[in-house]
């Protein structure tokens, strides 16, 4: 249920009803003047969150139908607004609605449609602004409440009519009413603010309205009532040529006493359905409404508040006000969004700051630890001088010597004497050594990496064989090899084997040999140990 304050202005006075979603309170004011302005201001200020809707139940409302050729809605709106603006009356409240243009309606429909000719019917509604209305509007402009707009009671009462018909089908089976497309309905109401009124509806909306000059609380209204109903029907016959009385339904929302008087007339031509305001309110489930003297005003306001609005009338002030309100709303939500963004960004900045501080602190701790470790290592590192006896040698000098010794020191250890002495076993063999060479291979004197260097000793000469027998030569050679390996166990010995394809019938009294004896200076094991 919506919250709102409805100001229903009529020629007889004004009813202000406050709808807070649960309860409805109302007050009748005959005229707004300085006496009640202050009190009303206080009321509105107290309820400043409630938007204000103004409904006009005035006599001087005109409803004029106009037909346009079929065109786009945008173009129609432009033309209709131009027509409204150029009618000469600048002060009145004006607007229009497009009457339902049901292209697929059946042929029985009595509503004169221009489907075949492709035309659009518009209903132009005008209401002059009386002094009373102006006073109320000027008063409303100064209130803190939001003024939504101005509405016409006859137009907006279509919602009441539809709801009543829909709801009465459920509750009142004996008087089943249906909105039929071919029918026309005449709603008869009586308000405190505007008096009695006929509002004529088709199935899609208002057709016209007329204020009648009798009161159901007075006597002798029966004749006038039927006279007005018939004159309305006659007027409708001009609009809808084929309309018959059976297609014309009258719905009275009047006091029970008045409806019983009408029924006593036993008019069999007219289809009349009677409701009181009270039982209409009950049907529409507005049970808590305080209905005064069966006037329709408060019920109308309640239905209006809780229904979609049909046609809003506005003026430049209201439009300006509404635009400002729209901009305010946009800014309100924009500001909320900004506040959220601000909070998120603030959190992000705070979080980043905390993370940064933590990381910086952590890295500074790391730096301090590294500095401490550096200082510790520096302290324990062997810097300064090295004392050897009475000589003082700097550590750097020791390292210089050390690096050279490490690289080329082992190369200074010559073992050619050892190899030569180990070869003394050769005196037991019949051989002659012509030359011996002792070479350092894989050595570059300008490179400190001497790991792949090795000494190689080469003996070359002749092995003698007195008998000349090839078998003896092989035996002697093999013996020599065995002896050599035995005497030089830590050396690698390479030699040329005696060729196996030599002529066995020939005598060999000597045979040349060449032994290559080598040893790696830096054994792999030693290198690994050094690296460790």
């Amino acid at each position, binding site marked *: 249920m919506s919250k709102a304050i409805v100001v229903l202005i009529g020629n007889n006075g004004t009813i202000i009803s406050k709808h807070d979603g649960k309860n409805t309170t109302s007050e009748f004011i005959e005229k707004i003047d300085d006496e009640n302005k202050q009190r009303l201001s206080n009321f509105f200020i107290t309820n400043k969150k409630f938007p204000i809707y103004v409904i006009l139940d005035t006599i001087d409302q005109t409803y004029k139908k106009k037909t346009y050729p079929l065109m786009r809605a945008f173009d129609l709106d432009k033309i209709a607004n131009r027509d409204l603006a150029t009618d000469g009356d600048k002060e009145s409240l004006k607007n229009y609605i497009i009457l339902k243009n049901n292209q697929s309606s059946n042929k029985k429909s009595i509503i004169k449609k221009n489907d075949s000719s492709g035309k659009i019917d518009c209903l132009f509604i005008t209401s002059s602004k009386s002094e009373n209305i102006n006073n109320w509007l000027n008063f409303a*402009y100064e*209130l*803190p*409440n939001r*003024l939504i707009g101005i509405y016409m009671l006859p137009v907006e009462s279509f919602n009441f009519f539809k709801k009543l018909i829909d709801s009465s089908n459920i509750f009142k089976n004996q008087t089943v009413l249906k909105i039929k497309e071919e029918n026309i309905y005449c709603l008869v109401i009586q308000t405190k603010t505007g008096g009695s009124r006929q509002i004529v509806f088709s199935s899609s909306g208002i057709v016209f309205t007329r204020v009648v000059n009798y009161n159901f609380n007075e006597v002798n209204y029966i004749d006038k009532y039927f006279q007005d109903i018939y004159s309305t029907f006659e007027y409708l016959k001009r609009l809808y040529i084929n309309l018959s009385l059976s297609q014309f339904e009258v719905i009275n929302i009047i006091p029970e006493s008045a409806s019983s008087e009408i029924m006593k007339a036993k008019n069999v031509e007219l289809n009349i359905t009677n409701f009181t305001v009270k039982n209409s309110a009950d049907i529409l489930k507005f049970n808590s409404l305080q209905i005064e003297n069966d006037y329709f005003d408060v019920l109308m306001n309640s239905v209006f508040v809780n229904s979609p609005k049909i046609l809003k009338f506005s003026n430049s002030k209201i439009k300006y*006000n509404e635009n400002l*309100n729209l*901009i*305010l709303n946009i*800014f309100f939500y924009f500001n909320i969004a*900004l*506040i959220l*963004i*601000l909070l998120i*960004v603030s959190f992000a*900045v705070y979080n*980043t*700051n905390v993370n*940064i501080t933590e*990381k*910086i602190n952590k*890295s*500074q701790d*790391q730096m301090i630890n*590294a*500095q401490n*470790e*550096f200082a510790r*290592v520096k302290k*324990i*590192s062997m810097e300064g001088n*090295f004392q*050897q006896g009475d000589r003082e040698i700097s*550590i750097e*000098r020791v*390292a*210089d*010597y*050390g*690096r*050279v*010794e*490490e690289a080329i020191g082992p*190369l*200074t250890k*010559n073992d*050619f*004497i050892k190899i030569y002495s180990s070869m003394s076993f050769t005196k037991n063999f019949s051989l002659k050594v*012509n*030359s*011996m*060479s*002792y*070479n*350092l291979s894989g*050595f570059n*004197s*300008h490179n*400190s990496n001497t790991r792949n260097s090795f*000494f190689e000793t080469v003996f070359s000469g002749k092995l003698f064989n007195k008998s000349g027998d090839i078998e003896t030569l092989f035996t002697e050679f093999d013996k020599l090899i065995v002896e050599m390996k035995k005497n030089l166990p830590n050396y690698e010995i390479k030699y040329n084997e005696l060729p196996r394809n030599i002529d066995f019938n020939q005598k060999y009294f000597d045979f040349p040999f060449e032994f290559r004896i080598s040893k790696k200076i830096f054994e792999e094991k030693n290198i690994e140990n050094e690296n460790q």
Partner: protein
Amino acid sequence: MKINKLKKKLTIYIGIAILMITLIGVLIFMYFFLNSSFIKEFDKITLEVTNIKEKTSEIEKKSLENKKYMKLWSQIDDQKKSLNGIKVDDLKKMIDTIAEKYSISNSTFKVSVPENFSSSVFKNETISILFTIVELNFNAYHDIKAIQFVNDVMNNIHGYRIINKFEIFKEREYDVKDYFDISAEKIFGIVRGKLVFSWYVYKETTPVKSSN
């Protein structure tokens, strides 16, 4: 609602929006500023930590090396540590003396021009190294004398001497006439020897950074 009040309210809303946008802008700027300054600061500290760790590691490595070289120091004989430099006359004198001892004849030697060894090879910081290549040719009566001669020469030279090549070659066997000629000092020994060695000697000068 009064239009003035609405306008006033709108002005306040716009003011709040501007304030918010400014604050958000400032905060976003702060966010990026903090981040960028953090990255700079963090990188600086990280770089510093890395440098310190590298230095620590270098010192540790150097310390280990120093320990190793201090052990090695006592194992290096004084002859190697000598700072006498390369003196060709002294070398000649010494070779002649040893040659006489082993009846070595016809000994000749060549010494290449000593060069200042680049410090980039052995990374020597406090002392320079001289380098030369010596070639010694001689004749000996027999192989044992030749070997002993070479061994003695090598043992008597200071610094680091590394034999690149040592060859002895006997062209033929001695005959009776040879013995008479030898005793009459008419011929040299028929064992020919050739020794080539690299010679590294310390010199108390500032090391040369690079050699051409």
